């Protein structure tokens, strides 16, 4: 083995180790969701706990391969078992499917609005020199500086005056707007890397400004559009605080609100909660995984691309 190979493999091992550390908490959530006794705490580090509850009628354990059961604590009680009970209950006995549909609808709207608005305004900021441009760019950053929690009370008052409490419209407007500043910055950064000459030649061929943007530049910016969509998606899919003040009808609940309803200050349905958490995380994780390559190529933040 040459020196280069040793280096590659040692880096690989290090990174594998680090990755395991990184995903450990995620694994932990899955493991909690598989317990049957609604407990958040356990001393066991095992991913799936051995238990009697998974023995079949002949007494053969499913997980423990027929090993005799150890009463570790000598207290006559068996340790928590595991299973998919919480998942089953989540889909059959709670409103989870409805929340999922609501969340899906709101998130789709927010993502579409976000992509539409960020792609156009990013373009204007990238290609044109106009009065107030500097000011606009800076104030976009400024909007991120205010502690969002203090905006809640005014938000509520504003929305109730406009009659937007208990409506998705209010929610969609707020979500789109919170994700926008970052998305606009990011779209502008990407447009900056596309040579102006492309539109210029299109314009010479008789395209209107908008057609040039729509037919030439936008298709070229797919990676950045994907990132914008992803960020808008995240802003809405995972959001709890704003939804909490706007949605007061359980039929309208989005996923985070629904999940929170399993939590009470002194009595949480941990099984349902973590099973729900796992299910909620799946779409986001799949999106991230399938879009990982765009994340690297599309998230430019003002870099200069060849």
């Amino acid at each position, binding site marked *: 083995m040459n020196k280069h190979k040793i280096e590659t493999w040692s880096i690989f091992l290090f990174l594998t180790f680090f990755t395991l550390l*990184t995903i450990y908490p995620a694994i932990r959530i899955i493991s909690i969701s598989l317990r049957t006794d609604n407990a958040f705490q356990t001393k066991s580090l095992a991913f799936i706990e051995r238990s009697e509850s998974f023995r079949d009628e002949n007494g053969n354990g499913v997980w423990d391969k027929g090993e005799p059961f150890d009463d570790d604590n000598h207290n006559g009680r068996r340790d928590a078992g595991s299973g998919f009970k919480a998942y089953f209950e989540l889909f059959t006995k709670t409103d989870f499917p409805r929340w999922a549909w609501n969340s899906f609808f709101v998130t789709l709207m927010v993502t579409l609005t976000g992509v539409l608005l960020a792609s156009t305004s990013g373009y204007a900021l990238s290609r044109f020199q*106009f009065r107030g441009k500097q000011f606009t760019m800076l104030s976009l950053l400024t909007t991120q500086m205010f502690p969002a929690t203090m905006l809640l009370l005014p938000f509520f008052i504003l929305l109730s005056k406009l009659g937007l409490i208990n409506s998705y419209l209010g929610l969609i407007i707020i979500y789109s707007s919170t994700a926008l500043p970052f998305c606009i910055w990011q779209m502008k950064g990407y447009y900056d890397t596309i040579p102006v000459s492309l539109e210029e030649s299109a314009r010479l061929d008789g395209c209107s400004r908008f057609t040039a943007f729509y037919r030439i530049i936008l298709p070229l910016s797919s990676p950045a559009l994907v990132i914008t969509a992803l960020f808008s998606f995240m802003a809405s899919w995972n959001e709890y605080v704003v939804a909490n003040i706007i949605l007061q009808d359980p039929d309208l609940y989005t996923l985070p609100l629904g999940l929170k309803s399993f939590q009470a200050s002194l009595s949480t349905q941990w099984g349902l909660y973590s099973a729900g958490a796992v299910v909620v995380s799946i779409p986001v994780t799949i999106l991230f995984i399938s879009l990982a390559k765009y994340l690297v190529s599309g998230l430019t933040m003002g870099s200069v691309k060849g």
Partner: protein
Amino acid sequence: MYRPGLFDFMKSGLRILFACFLVIAALTAVADAKTRIHIWHQMLYENRKALREMCDRYEARHPDIEISLLYRETEELRSNYQSAAMGGSGPELIYGPSDQVGPFSTMGIIKPLDDIFKPEFFARFVDNAVVRYKGRIWMIGDVMGNHLMLLYNRNLVKSPPENTDEMIRIGQELTRDLNGDGKIDQYGLVWNFTEPFFFAPWVGGFGSWLITDDGQPNLDTEAMVSAFTFIKSLRDKYKIIPKESDYEIANAMFKTGAAAMIINGDWSLGDYEGVVDFGITRIPKVSATGLWPTPMVSTKGYSINVNVTGDLLDKCADVIRYLTSDEVQYYYASKLNMQPSSIAALKSSAVTENEELRESAKSIEVGRPMPVQPEMRAIWDALRTQYQAVLGGEKSPEEAARLSQLNAEKQIRDMNDILDPGPSVILIKWILPLLLIILTAFYRKQIVLFFREFHQQKFAYYMLLPAVIGIFSVVIFPFLFNIMLSLSNFSLRTFQNWQLVGFQHYREVLTEARFYGILLKTIIWTVVNIVFHVTLGVFLAVLINRTLPAKKTLRTLMIIPWALPQYITALTWRGMFNQEYGSINLILGRLFHLSPIQWLSQPFEAFSACIITNIWLGFPFMMVIALGGLQSIPRELYEAARVDGASRFQQFRKITVPMLKPVMIPAIVLGIVWTFNNINVVWLVSNAGEPSDQTHILVSYVYKAAFNLYRYGYGAALSMVIFLILLIFGIFFMKKTKATGTVL
């Protein structure tokens, strides 16, 4: 690069968008003929189902009424209801614990019930179920209880302790190392002892109480000192309770038999049913005084929104009559083991023949009613801080008792303070409009030019305007409103009639030593986080940006912390940091034989725990940005450097760093702003600032001041200060690094 699929999807997406807006508009237009009565409540999971059943019964008898139920966790119920009632809306009925009566009636957002019901109606209930405050009746309870008791595992405890000496003796017998590894596997007693509510009964047991009848704090007492000392001795001298325990852990330990006794409330009984063979008894008599500890007993019940009038009010009153009726209470008693509040229901066989209810009633006998005064919140808060400091060994019991009294008095003063308009009001009222006029005049030219050029640059403006209007309409009004709040005396006692008072809140913020302490902590929080995010991110990006086996998989897996919802991961980390049950200490113990670190009960460790969590959450973002930057660096540069004999480190310093800089700086600026204002992690990991409010950063402190202690004006001023700090930093940093050159 051209991707027709994605692009076409976007086009059709736009059509769907408009179609959907139309559908929403159409759906909201459908009218509803029934009278809808909304109830907001905070009932536990099982109880919610019973309440729904009862409401269904009512709806069947009254076809014109529809009852809609909404669950909110207790604290959120309170703050949401406050905002809603202030905005003139909210549910017709609100259900909750009796201590919300104090703040709600002071704010004027619930109706006095003695105008609506006849005295005969109230006479049907036990005295404590009719909640009075300042001479009026505000709430009518349907259950009694919420009180703490001693529960014991019958397999381990044969006869329950009568007094604390016995409790300690039994506790010591049952605190054991079962498998001989030198660690304790079973404790005699466990409970959520760090939380003041779970500590309060002992104060009564030592012969005193937290609050006087006229609502003054009563914390600097002999009894308080003895109670502090007693709890500490249980942990440190007799060692019958674990070092660190919150509610969840205590619960899990009792369920799995890892604790023989637990102090817990009546709400938990259903949770243990069929899991543990348990008995119920009073919290044991304090041997030193011969007194029973006094658990707080409260009722939960219904109040009516102040905005309800006329015909609707009668209907609401009827719903309350039904939901507190004997019929409903029998059902709760038999199904949920709830202690009824009606005198008739208490005498029924459903109650007297139910062993659990009988035993639990014995604890109610020695209990004290939960104080309803709004001041109680300040007392809890002051007590929590000092009590946790005693447990952490930072303060002596005497000092803590004295300080908790002082702090409670101060907080009550702050809470009840109604600021009078100062001279600066005139200044504000005149100067602000004047400033606006001057600014307009000053920028007259620019504004005129703007409209003139609008035509020339029409295309750019049209592209930009929708987004800008969206963002600013969402941000500008709340922002201006917040400025107004910060200059006003908006607080508990001025909820309905606040006015502008001037710059007092700003002066208060800037002259408090506390503010600078927290600011320093916030800066440490931000700097440490960003340094780790960036170095870790860049380091990993450099490592991974080469030919590696399974490179894509590794890269993708490392992004996962970014993808998962923060409210879920932060709570998971909190669980992982637990001293005895958290996987971090378990792993550290197994691998390195470290003694368990008290992550969540020591200020420094708790703050570190928050930082570790946030580093985990934040590094993938920086890694991805750095990766993007690295890929744009031409390979030839490195080759040329290698030919010139540059070492790896030199290559990194002379090529990688300068080429990455323009990419990283905007990301760092954003990262700093986001980290500075990240309330989620601190709030969830440290459980709202525990221990002793020492893990706060500025945003979490604002949240606490505004929403927990009703000091909205003060909170608004503090948030303006935060905003200005970040603004000044942002401008300075951008100028210094010339980031504007690459971004703008």
